[in-house]
C-alpha cells in the first residue's frame, strides 16, 4: 500500500515516491541503537562546529541543549568539565536586561532563553558555580513581560516576530523557574487556542483571531504543551477552548504507513521526517491528560475508556523502527531521513521521540493532588505581581502538575530489547524526567 493510489501524478506524489524508494532498504532491518556512535557525534559537536554550520551562530544555546539533552536521553552522563563549560558558555549568552541571546553579545530571544534554561537544568545544579543559583530569574521574568503582547502572544525578541513557539518557550521557562504570574498568563490561552486549524492540528500564529498557516507538527507540539501548562494553573478547565477530537484525529493521521516505517510527517501530504517523532510522537502522552479532563464531563464507561489493551493511539513500535532503521546515521548522529545529513536538532528530536515511544509517561493525578496539598508556600515575593493571591495558587498547581508526569515502570515497549532503552523525557519540557524533578524542587524550594 502506498500513500497515493489515485493515478494522479504531481510534485507531491513524485516526492513521496522518492522517499518510499529511499526507505525501502530500511524496511526489514533491525538496527540497534548505536549509542557509542551518537555519543561520539555529539561530543564532537560540543567541541566545535565545522565551518559549514556557521549559520547556527545565532543558535548557540540550542546547539548546547540539543547535544546535552541527546546525551542524557542516551543515558550518557556528562563529565564535570563539560558541565562547567556549558554553564560558562550559557552565562556568556545571558544579558543584563534579562534573558539569553543566541550567542555572546546577541539580544535576548525567547527561544534561546528556553534552550539556555533547559540546558542549565541538564548541566547545572545548586551551589556555587553550578549555575542554578546564578540564573537571573527576575531578569528573565522582566524580559518575558517585555515580549508579552496584549493578545496573549509573545514576540520572540525585541522587534521580532510572533508565533506559538514563543508562547511555549516562555511558559516552559517560567514554569521551571517559578516565575509564572497571572500577568504573564493573561490571554495566552486564547491566543494559542486560536491557532487550531480546521484540520485539527495547530498553525504558527494568528492575528486578532485570524489563524495563519496550516496545521503543523512543530507548532502543534508547542500549542498543546502550552495549553497543558496553562490548564494546570487554573481551576476552570480549558478543554472547551479547542477541539481535542479533531486534534487527535489529525495527529494520528500524521503517522506514515508501513512503507514509510511508521515515521511521522509534519503536515498533511508532506514527507515523513525524524524530528516529528518527538513533535507528534511525543504529544501522545499529553492527550491522556486531556482525555482525563474530557472523561469527567462524559458519562464514564468502561468500554469507552480511551486506552485499549496496548495503551496508546499510535503505533509506538513502528515509530521506534523509523528512528532506529531510517534515522540513524552509520557514522553517528540522527537525521530527517536516509540521504540527509545528521545534525544535532534531528538527533535530539529523534531520540526524544524514541524515548516517548518506549516509555509510557503518565499524568498521575493522585500524585499531583498530593503534591498540591503538601505544597509549602514560601514565595519570597521577588517576582513583581499585583495579584499575589493568584500567583500563590498558580505556583502551587504549576509545580504539582509539572511534577506529576511519571514513567509507568511496569509498562514499556522497547523495540529490539533492553539494550535500546533510553531515559524517559518530560512530555512538556523535553528534558529527562529525573532532571526536571530535581530542578522543579529546587526552584520552587520544595
Amino acid at each position, binding site marked *: *500500500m502506498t500513500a*497515493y493510489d*489515485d493515478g*494522479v501524478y*504531481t*510534485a*507531491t506524489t513524485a516526492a513521496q515516491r522518492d522517499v518510499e524508494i529511499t526507505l525501502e532498504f530500511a524496511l526489514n532491518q533491525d538496527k540497534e541503537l548505536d549509542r557509542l556512535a551518537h555519543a561520539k557525534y555529539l561530543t564532537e559537536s560540543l*567541541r*566545535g*562546529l*565545522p*565551518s559549514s554550520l*556557521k*549559520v*547556527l*551562530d*545565532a543558535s548557540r544555546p540550542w546547539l548546547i541543549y540539543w547535544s546535552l539533552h541527546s546525551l542524557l536521553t542516551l543515558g550518557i552522563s556528562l563529565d564535570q568539565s563539560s558541565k562547567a*563549560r556549558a554553564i560558562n*558558555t550559557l552565562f*556568556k549568552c545571558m544579558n543584563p536586561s534579562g534573558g539569553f*541571546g543566541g*550567542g*555572546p*553579545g*546577541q*539580544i535576548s530571544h525567547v527561544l534561546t532563553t528556553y534552550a539556555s534554561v533547559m540546558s542549565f537544568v541538564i548541566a547545572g545544579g545548586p551551589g556555587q558555580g553550578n549555575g542554578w543559583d546564578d540564573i537571573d530569574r527576575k531578569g528573565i521574568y522582566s524580559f518575558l513581560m*517585555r515580549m508579552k*503582547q496584549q493578545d496573549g502572544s509573545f*514576540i520572540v*525578541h*525585541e*522587534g*521580532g*516576530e510572533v508565533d506559538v513557539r514563543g508562547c511555549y518557550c516562555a511558559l516552559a521557562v517560567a514554569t521551571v523557574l517559578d516565575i509564572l504570574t497571572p500577568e504573564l498568563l493573561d490571554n495566552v490561552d486564547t491566543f494559542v487556542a486560536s491557532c487550531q*486549524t*480546521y*484540520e485539527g492540528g495547530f498553525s504558527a*500564529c494568528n*492575528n486578532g483571531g*485570524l489563524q*495563519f*498557516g*496550516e496545521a503543523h507538527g512543530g507548532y502543534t507540539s508547542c500549542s498543546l504543551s502550552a495549553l497543558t501548562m496553562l490548564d494546570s494553573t487554573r481551576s476552570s478547565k480549558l478543554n472547551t477552548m479547542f477541539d481535542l477530537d479533531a486534534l*487527535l484525529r*489529525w495527529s494520528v*493521521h500524521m503517522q506514515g504507513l*508501513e512503507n514509510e516505517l*511508521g515515521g511521522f510527517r509534519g*503536515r*498533511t*501530504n*508532506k514527507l515523513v521526517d525524524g524530528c516529528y517523532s518527538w513533535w507528534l510522537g511525543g504529544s501522545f502522552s499529553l492527550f491522556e491528560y486531556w482525555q482525563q479532563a474530557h472523561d469527567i464531563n462524559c458519562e464514564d*464507561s468502561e*468500554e*469507552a475508556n*480511551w486506552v485499549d489493551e496496548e495503551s496508546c*493511539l*499510535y*503505533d509506538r513500535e*513502528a515509530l521506534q523502527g523509523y528512528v532506529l532503521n531510517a534515522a540513524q546515521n552509520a557514522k553517528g548522529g540522527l537525521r530527517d531521513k536516509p540521504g540527509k545529513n545528521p545534525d544535532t536538532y534531528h538527533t535530539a528530536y529523534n531520540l526524544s521521540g524514541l524515548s516517548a515511544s518506549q516509555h509510557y509517561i503518565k499524568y498521575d493525578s493522585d500524585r499531583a493532588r498530593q503534591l498540591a496539598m503538601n505544597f509549602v508556600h514560601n514565595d519570597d515575593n521577588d517576582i513583581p505581581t499585583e495579584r499575589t493571591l493568584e500567583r500563590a495558587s498558580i505556583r502551587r498547581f504549576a509545580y504539582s502538575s509539572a511534577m506529576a508526569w511519571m514513567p509507568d515502570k511496569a509498562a514499556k515497549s522497547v523495540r529490539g530489547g533492553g539494550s535500546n532503552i533510553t531515559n524517559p523525557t518530560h512530555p512538556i519540557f523535553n528534558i529527562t524526567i529525573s532532571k526536571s524533578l530535581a530542578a522543579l524542587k529546587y526552584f520552587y524550594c520544595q
Partner: protein
Amino acid sequence: MFPWFSTMLYAERDDFKDLQPIPQDEGPSPLAPINYSPKCECRDPCFVGSLALKMTPDKDAMDMFRAVVHANEKSERALGLTEDIIRMNAGHYTVWHYRTTIIVELGLDIQAELKLMDELSTEFLKSYQVWHHRRLCVGLLATSTSPFASKDAPAAVTIAASPETSSPPPPLESSKELAQSELKFVAELFYATDDPKNYHTWVYRQWILTYFDKILQDEDRHLEFEFIESLIKDDIYNNSVWSHRFFCLFKLGWLQTTLEAEIEYVLSKIGIAPSNMSSWNYLRGLLKANRRGLNDERVLQFSETLVKAKSASDDMKPPVPALEWLADAALEDKNPIATKYYLQLKEMDPIRRHYWSWKSHLALAA
C-alpha cells in the same frame, strides 16, 4: 551591486578605521563554539548570490558589528555591514533588528529595502527574519504618506517599526498598489523557488491579505481564487493551498460561493483523487465552519459510492478517508454500523489500528 562590498577585511578598511573591532567574548574553553575564519573563503562578489548559504559569518564582520553597536552608530556604512552579515547568516536576528533601527532612525529609503528583500527572500526562503523584516518594510510603506517612498521622500516612520508592536497601524487607502505587488511577488516566488508549500511564504501572504483586506477589492479577491485554483490544478495534494482556500473563504470571510456549491467543488476534487487527505480534511472543516455535522446526504452518498466502487474491483481497497467519513458520521448519529466500519478500517490501515480500535469501542458504547 553592493557599493560597500569589498574583499578587504573590515578591520583593514579605511572607511571603518575610526572603529576598534570588538572580539566576541566567549570565555575560556567554550562549548559548541563556531569555528570562525578570519576571512570568508569566497568573497568574490560574482559568487555571492549562489554561495551565500555556504558563506560564514566571519569573525571580522561580527567584530566590527559589535564595535558599531557599542558606538550606537546608525549610518549608511553600518547598514552595509548588516547586509554583509545577513548575506552570510540570515538567521542573525540581532543584526536584522539593528538594521531595522538604522532604517527607521535615519528615515532611509524603504522601497530600496523592499527591493533588497525581493532578493533575500528568494535566497533565504526559510528564514523567519527575512519575512518578518519584509512585513516591517511593507508596514512602513503602507502607512507613509508616499506609499512608494523614494529617497527624496523619506517614509513617515514614527510608530510603525516600534519594536514592541507586532502589527503596524492600518494601511493607507493609497497603498493598494503595494498590496497587489506583494501578492504578485509571493505568487511568482512559489514558482521561482519551486516550493509552493513553503510555510513562511504562505503565512506572509495571509498577513498581506489580512492587513490590506479593507482596501482590496472584489477583483483582487477574484484573482486570489484564480491563483488558488491554478495551484490546486498544479498539485491537488498541496495542502498549503487547500488551507489557504479555507483561510480566504472562512477566515477572511470572502464568501464568493454558497456552502452547497463549495461542497460540490470539494467533492469534484475528491473524485479526482479519492485518497487525498487534504480535500477530505477541507470538507470536514467546511461543514464544521458552517455548524454542520458529518451527516451531509451528498457526502454520505458520495463516500458510499466510492467505497463500493473500489471494493468491487479485486486489487483496489476503498479509500481510507471515505470509509472514515462513513464511520465518523455513523458514530455522530450513534448508529451501531460505525463499529463495523472502524473494524474494517483497522484491517485496512494497521498503522492506526489502536486508534480505529479505540473508535470502535466508542461506537460500541454510544
